[in-house]
């Protein structure tokens, strides 16, 4: 699924990176704790989060995550938008809460989650 298709599925708007909305995403991760993102996420991921600070964008950058969607109507700060722009990361926002955003994305066909087995 492309970011553009995901945008439609989760009723989101693109805040930054409209030119890169054709990028493919294979899986998604809903998390507010960035270490969990680093523990479980692989490639071509859409990160859904309710957390607003620059470390979200930095985590995405270091993990090669190409798209972040902020849920519950939250908006990224100017500093976050700037950092995303510099690193080619697409930022979206939706008014949906985390649970519904994840559910709608799953229903639309993004079925892959984390890659590491929890023992």
């Amino acid at each position, binding site marked *: 699924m492309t970011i553009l298709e995901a945008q439609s599925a989760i009723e989101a708007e693109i805040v930054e990176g409209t030119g890169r909305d054709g990028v493919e995403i294979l899986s998604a991760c809903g998390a507010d704790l960035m270490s*969990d993102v680093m523990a479980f996420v692989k490639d071509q991921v859409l990160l859904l989060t309710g957390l607003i*600070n620059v470390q979200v964008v930095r985590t995405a950058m270091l993990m*090669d995550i190409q798209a972040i969607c902020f849920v519950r109507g939250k908006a990224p700060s100017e500093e976050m938008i700037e950092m995303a722009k510099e690193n080619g990361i697409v930022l979206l926002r939706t008014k949906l809460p985390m649970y519904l955003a994840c559910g709608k994305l799953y229903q639309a066909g993004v079925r892959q989650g984390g890659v590491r087995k929890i023992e």
Partner: protein
Amino acid sequence: MTYHFAVSGDDFSRAGNASSEMKKILQRLGIPPETIKRTAVAMYEAEINMVVHAGGGVADIEIDPGQITIVMSDHGPGIADLELAMQDGYSTAPEAIRELGFGAGMGLTNMKRNSDEMVIDTAVGKGTTVTMKILIPGA
């Protein structure tokens, strides 16, 4: 090649600057992407730990043909129970840090999983030095 970074302890928003810089350097050197990601995550978690627990510190990175060595040193409080600290989900980070998206108790295990070798030298009241080695495949 060696690189040195000072990690400031007073500004959480700047935590991770050294790891971001290091990632760019490794990309320029043509290191395989998977190795870059492992190095970046291991170093980033260590950097966050330094800022959250130790008031900052220093990071020294050495790149050899076959491996990357990251040495993160601080003069913080040290780790009282290392075995406990290494358990997934165990954290002594204050609540305010969790609100910033960290303190999940995954940092040290993320560092270990992304390294081929990790050694922690810590003493209560003196500080902590974490040495992580990451092999470069095909080198």
